[in-house]
Every structure is written in structure tokens, then in C-alpha cells.
């Protein structure tokens, strides 16, 4: 794979976003002033699992400033239920109310919404909402969830096992019989949360005359979010505008449409008044999505040199009480890409995802990160058991450049990757042999030095076929637009959702490179569904590849159009001898690029 020569990309640039963020002039959701906006506040379950018997909202409704108190029954009239039911083998379809009607499923589950003229008053009234519960036994760990006698988190499902996929490629069991050794290793990771420093929040503004909802929210995925929000409100996508300006971190937590946000939107439409909501930190910890909580096992059959003959993987994941995402979404991708840069064709996986009485899971900070932990942990276990150098175990199993493209056991095709070169470069940079010597010397005097090796081949973005098959909302594609204004400045947009990545700077690079202008004259527009073209947003490290790539291609096309016009102005048909550089059209004359009289503003 040869790399194109870049003129703009790769140069360090000061971030365009910084000035406003450093001086307190950023614009996060809660910074927006909306005259007359009411404030929403949620009543939450104190129980992990309980039947809802009755509500008494009379006291709350009589409190100063209170405009409305609504429960799941009310919202069922104004919103549709969430249905998480992509046709995936082994995945039980799930349906969820906007706010729970019959029972709560985790501590922090929102059961009622108070709308008042002021956030302080809304919180006062929230304390006066009486809810009668009948507590139920709770499912608190994934092993308990699997027990047929365990309480059922979702009583419409046949069991708590919401998703189960099993696949066998080749004959992993058979290869174990021929193996020098079968190395088994377990891995367990507790539940975690994203904890963006800006909590969730939103502002819903309903325009009764135009039948249009403007929804301000910090989201990583403005368009798929709009698709879901419009659908749940029984509106068309042209009746909803989602605006996401500065966002104080997402890390995967700000992808799904949350029930609180849907409630605020529905209430704004019902009351015909703007409504805003900002959760506090306790709510963020209780009821924004959490992540991971996996117990895994690998079984590697190896020869005496540590060469993988076969690999078996088992994953058990605690998904929490609700499916904000399809249950298979995260764990199954781990199983799909596990073997990464290592050669092994006899491979099986068994992925079980269970419901429990905890808040629902979502992707977090490289959602498939446990892939490298499992695979590299397995190779380290092999090295340890066979008393081999862990680097040698990697080398003997890792793909060489001449073995690419390589079809993985799971059917994925690896191409245009350089794991071996990367590993060897890292080893050389570290000075591996020297390090091992220093490590030995250190041990002799009681100093313990460590070194770990990790290589991972991770999917960044997927095609629309994958997204559609996975049941992820949205079209699955990425698009970009670019406009050259009369003065030669460039406006461009793509459907990503910025949460601190510095897109306004890095994507300006991509446009500058493709078009042939300096990054200073490029302005990137993001986070507004009426301005940006439909895109899948930012998740799983896809922003640079999908968004940057699309903008780059878009800008290249724009350059060829500019050069066609410039060719006419210059009276030449040899467009290959023209290029745009720093907004000036240049012509190749006698092997040298020479500036012409034509600039971007002239075209």
C-alpha cells in the first residue's frame, strides 16, 4: 500500500475550536437561553425491581410553578414503544415503554416527569410525587440471570438470555486433540460508565404552526437520533430538527435516544411550550447507559512453538435491564474480530448476553476494546505455559504482508493493514532485547519492570449493509457537501457529531487537501440535521475514516470542477496540467508548477 503525498494533512495545526472553549464562549445545551422554557425533572425508582401499583400526583400538582406531572400511561398516548427487534438469529425481540407502566427494572428507572416553571420548583415537586411499589426479587449478576428459576427482567421474553450466538468455523475441538497443549484462560471485567463531564440534557421547542420540533441535545449521532426521535413521536424526519453544538464528552453514552429525552420532546409538543432538562450527576450515574461487564473464557490449542491450531471463545455479558442497543451488538463484534492479525481458521465462539436489574448497556470508548485484552491475554497465557518469549508467540502467529488479503475464520477480509510492520517497528523502537536484559538485571536487585505487547485489528466504520443487518438506526452511509463562496472561502459539512475530537480542525485538513486551499479558509459545519447531510455520526472511531474520507473525496471532486472552469478561463484543455494550491490555480510548465492568474475566487 503506497501512501499519497499530502500537502496539508499531517501538519500540526492549532485547534480552531479552542478560542471559544478557553474563553467561556462555547455553547453547550444548557448554555442556550430559551425564553419561557419550562423545566423537566424525573421521579426515579428507589427499587431495582418492583411492580408499580399506583401514583399519587395531587400534592405535586399543587406545588408552586408546577405545570404538569405525567407518567408512563400518559406518554403511551403521545409516543410509540421502542422496538428492538432486528432479524438476528438468537436475539429475542424487545419492546419497551417510553416510561415504565407496570414495573421498574433498575434503581433510577424514571417513572414520572414533573414539568415546572423553574428547575428548583420542579425538584421540590418531584419529592411530592407518591409512587406505591411492590418490590420484586432482583437479578443482580449474570450467572444468576441464567438460572431458569431467576426472576424475569422482561416478562415477555422466554428467559433473561436476550441474545445468544454460537458459531463453529473449522474443527476447533478436533484440533485440540492433536495439540501440544490446550491453554485455557478466563477474563472478567466489571461494569463501567462513560461519565462525560457534561451530563445529558436537552431542550425541546415545538412549533405548533409549522408542526415542527426543534430539539437541542448533545449527541454523537444527530441524524440517526432524529430518525429515532421522529419515529417515536409519530412525526416524519422533516418535522424534526436535531441541533447539537458543543458537547462535553460522549464516549458512547450520547448515541441512543434516551427515554427522558423522548419524554421532554413529547411534553413540549403536548403542552406547546418549550421544555428543557438537564440531569444531575447522580442521575447520570444511575440512569445513563453503562458499559461492559463481561466474563469470558478462551481455549487455545497450540503446538510446541506456540502456534495457534484452534481457538474457542465464550463471552457472557450483563446487558442491564433495557436494550438501548440490540443485545448482540457489542459482544458479537468482539467474537467476530477477536483473532485480528493472527492466523487461525479453526475457531468457535459462544456469545451469551443476559438482562439484569441494572441500567442498560451501551458502547463505550472503543466498544470492542476487550478484543485485544482477550486475544493478547490468551497469547501471553500461551507464552507463559510453554515458557516462550511472548514476542515469539506473536511472531509465529501474526500475518505477514505476503499473506494479505486474508480471509478470517469468521469470513471478514483483512486487506491494507500492516500489523507485522507495526509490531516490528514498535519492538525496534522499544529496544526489546535490551529491555529484556534490563528487566533481568532489575529483578536481580528486586526491581520489577514490565512490558506488554498488544496488537489489534479493529473495524472503524462499517458499510450500510452491516448497520442495517445489525439493527442500528440510520441509513448506514456517509455523505458530505462543500460550497465555495464568492470570496473563495469554503464551507463544508458532514454528518458526524463532535464531542471534543477537534473535527473543525482535522476535517478542515481533509477539505484543504482534497480541494487545494489552506485550512484557514475552510469552515466545517457539524451537528445540525438541516445543515449537515445524513450520516451515521461519531462512534467506534469512525469519524476520521468515514467523515474525513467522505469530505476528502468530496473536496477532490470540487477541485476537478474548479480546474475544468479554470481550464476554460486559461484557454487550456489539458486539465491534468492544472492543480489548485493555496486557492491559486497552478499550471505545469516545463515540469514545474507555476501560478496562473486564476484564483479560487475567480472561478
Amino acid at each position, binding site marked *: 500500500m503506497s501512501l499519497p503525498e499530502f500537502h496539508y494533512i499531517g501538519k500540526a495545526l*492549532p*485547534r480552531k*475550536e*479552542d*478560542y*471559544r*472553549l*478557553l*474563553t*467561556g*464562549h*462555547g*455553547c*453547550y445545551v*444548557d*448554555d442556550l*437561553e430559551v425564553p419561557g422554557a419550562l423545566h423537566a425533572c424525573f421521579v426515579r425508582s428507589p427499587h431495582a425491581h418492583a411492580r408499580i401499583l399506583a401514583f399519587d400526583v395531587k400534592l405535586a400538582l399543587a406545588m*408552586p*410553578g408546577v405545570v404538569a406531572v405525567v407518567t408512563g400511561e400518559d406518554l403511551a398516548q403521545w409516543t410509540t414503544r421502542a422496538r428492538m427487534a432486528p432479524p438476528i438469529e438468537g436475539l429475542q425481540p424487545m419492546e419497551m415503554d417510553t416510561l415504565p407502566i407496570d414495573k421498574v427494572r433498575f434503581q433510577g428507572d424514571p417513572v414520572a416527569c414533573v414539568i415546572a*416553571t*423553574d*428547575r*428548583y*420548583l420542579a425538584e421540590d415537586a418531584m419529592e411530592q410525587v407518591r409512587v406505591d411499589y411492590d418490590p420484586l426479587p432482583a437479578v443482580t449478576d449474570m450467572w444468576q440471570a441464567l438460572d431458569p428459576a431467576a426472576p424475569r427482567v422482561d416478562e415477555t421474553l422466554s428467559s433473561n438470555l436476550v441474545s445468544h450466538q454460537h458459531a463453529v468455523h473449522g474443527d476447533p475441538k478436533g484440533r485440540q486433540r492433536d495439540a501440544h497443549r490446550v491453554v485455557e484462560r478466563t477474563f472478567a471485567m466489571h461494569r463501567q460508565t462513560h*461519565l*462525560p*463531564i*457534561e*451530563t445529558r440534557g436537552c431542550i425541546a421547542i415545538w412549533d405548533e404552526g409549522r408542526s415542527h420540533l426543534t430539539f437541542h441535545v448533545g449527541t454523537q449521532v444527530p441524524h440517526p437520533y432524529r430518525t429515532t426521535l421522529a419515529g417515536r413521536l409519530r412525526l416524519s424526519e422533516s418535522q424534526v430538527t436535531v441541533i447539537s453544538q*458543543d*458537547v*462535553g*464528552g460522549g*464516549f458512547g453514552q450520547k448515541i441512543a435516544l434516551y427515554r427522558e429525552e423522548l419524554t421532554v420532546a413529547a411534553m413540549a409538543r403536548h403542552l406547546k411550550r418549550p421544555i428543557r432538562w*438537564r440531569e*444531575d*450527576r447522580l442521575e447520570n450515574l444511575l440512569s445513563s447507559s453503562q458499559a461492559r461487564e463481561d466474563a469470558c473464557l478462551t481455549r487455545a490449542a497450540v503446538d510446541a512453538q506456540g502456534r495457534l491450531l484452534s481457538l474457542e471463545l465464550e463471552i457472557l455479558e450483563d446487558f442491564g435491564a433495557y436494550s438501548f442497543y440490540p443485545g448482540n451488538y457489542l459482544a458479537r463484534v468482539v467474537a467476530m474480530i477477536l483473532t485480528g492479525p493472527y492466523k487461525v481458521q479453526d475457531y468457535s465462539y459462544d456469545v451469551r448476553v443476559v438482562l439484569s436489574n441494572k441500567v442498560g448497556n451501551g458502547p463505550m470508548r472503543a466498544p470492542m476494546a476487550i478484543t485485544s485484552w482477550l486475544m493478547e491475554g490468551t497469547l501471553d497465557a500461551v507464552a507463559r505455559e510453554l515458557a516462550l518469549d511472548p514476542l515469539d508467540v506473536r511472531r509465529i502467529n501474526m500475518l505477514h504482508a505476503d499473506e494479505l488479503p486474508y480471509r478470517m475464520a469468521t469470513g471478514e477480509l483483512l486487506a491494507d493493514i500492516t500489523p507485522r510492520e507495526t509490531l516490528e517497528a514498535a519492538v525496534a523502537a522499544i529496544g526489546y532485547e535490551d529491555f529484556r536484559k534490563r528487566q533481568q538485571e532489575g529483578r536481580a536487585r528486586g526491581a520489577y519492570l514490565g512490558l506488554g505487547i498488544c496488537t489489534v485489528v479493529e473495524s472503524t466504520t462499517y458499510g450500510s449493509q452491516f448497520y442495517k443487518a445489525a439493527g442500528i438506526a440510520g441509513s448506514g452511509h456517509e455523505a458530505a457537501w462543500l460550497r465555495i463562496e464568492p470570496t473563495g472561502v469554503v464551507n463544508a459539512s458532514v454528518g458526524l457529531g463532535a*464531542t*471534543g*475530537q*477537534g473535527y473543525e480542525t482535522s476535517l478542515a485538513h481533509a477539505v484543504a487537501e482534497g480541494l487545494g486551499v489552506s485550512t484557514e479558509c475552510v469552515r466545517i459545519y457539524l451537528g445540525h440535521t438541516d445543515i449537515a447531510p445524513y450520516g451515521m455520526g461519531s462512534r467506534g472511531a469512525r469519524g476520521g475514516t468515514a467523515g474525513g474520507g467522505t469530505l476528502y473525496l468530496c473536496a477532490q471532486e470540487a477541485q476537478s470542477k474548479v480546474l475544468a472552469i479554470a481550464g476554460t478561463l486559461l484557454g487550456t484543455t489539458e486539465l491534468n496540467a492544472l492543480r489548485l494550491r493555496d486557492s491559486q490555480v497552478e499550471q505545469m510548465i516545463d515540469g514545474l508548477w507555476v501560478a496562473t492568474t486564476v484564483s479560487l475566487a475567480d472561478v
Partner: protein
Amino acid sequence: MSSMDQQVITLTVNGENRDVSVAPRKLLVDVLREDCRLTGTHVGCEHGVCGACTVLVDGRPLRACLTYAIQMEGHEVLTIESVAANGKLSPLQQALHEEHGLQCGFCTPGIVMTFEAFLRQNPAPTEDEIREALSGNLCRCTGYQNIVKAILKAATQMRLDSDYVAS
């Protein structure tokens, strides 16, 4: 909120006196953001842990989410909006920009306010002292390394600036 609960108080914010009518229980951070329309002071945790709402009161850092606005009469409050003079970043802001000491920017105003005060009190801090002082400000994006680098750089720059002024 009934008008009976409201009190008119005079706040001195960024050198300007402002009369605001607020309930006694209204937090300084909410008054700054809603009544003074200074939204650069952010609310991250509402219980004094994350440091995003840090402002300076009489030159000392203080959590605006743990302070009632009515307590602030007779005190000088400085917010992030006061730091860059005439559009020019302070040496600390400039260093954070150059060293990539911010990403999403939500915690940044609190960090700037904390260290504007810190560097005046301790113009030549060690890295350990910076890390100790920074422990009161949570950042979820950067991993802190570049923030520490930026503060060290700002300290050096500010010493050079003051030497220059002194000479």
C-alpha cells in the same frame, strides 16, 4: 417561585456591579449562568467534586455549585469570561491551546480559573504541585498529561513576562 422568596442583591462580577433578584437558595453558578448570562461557568456534578464550576472569589478559587449567590454580596467574583483581555488569551489559556490541553472543553473554564489563581500564588510550581492542585478538577477527555504540560509552560511564560515588566 413566588416573589416573596426573591431578594435583590448586588453582585460584583468581573468588575461590574449587577443587581439581581434571586431566591436565597439559588446557587451562585445558576445565578451566574441564568441571571448574569455568563454561561462559561459550567455545571458538572453539583456537589463540589468535578471543579467545572470553579470561579474566583476575592482571588481565590471557589465552587460556584456549593455557594449561594446571596453569600457573595461584598465579594469580587471573577468568571472565565474575564480572563482573556480584549480577545487576547492569557498565557495559561495560550499554553493550553498550544499544548492541546483541552478536547471537549467542558472542564476547561474550571481548570483555567483554578490555575490563574494557583500560578499567581505559586509562580514556579513543580509538576507534583501542579498535579496536586489539578486533583480538584476532573477532565474525562485528555488524561491530564497535556494540561500539566501546559501549566508548566504557562508558569515559565508568566515568569518571563513578569521579569520583562520588572526590568
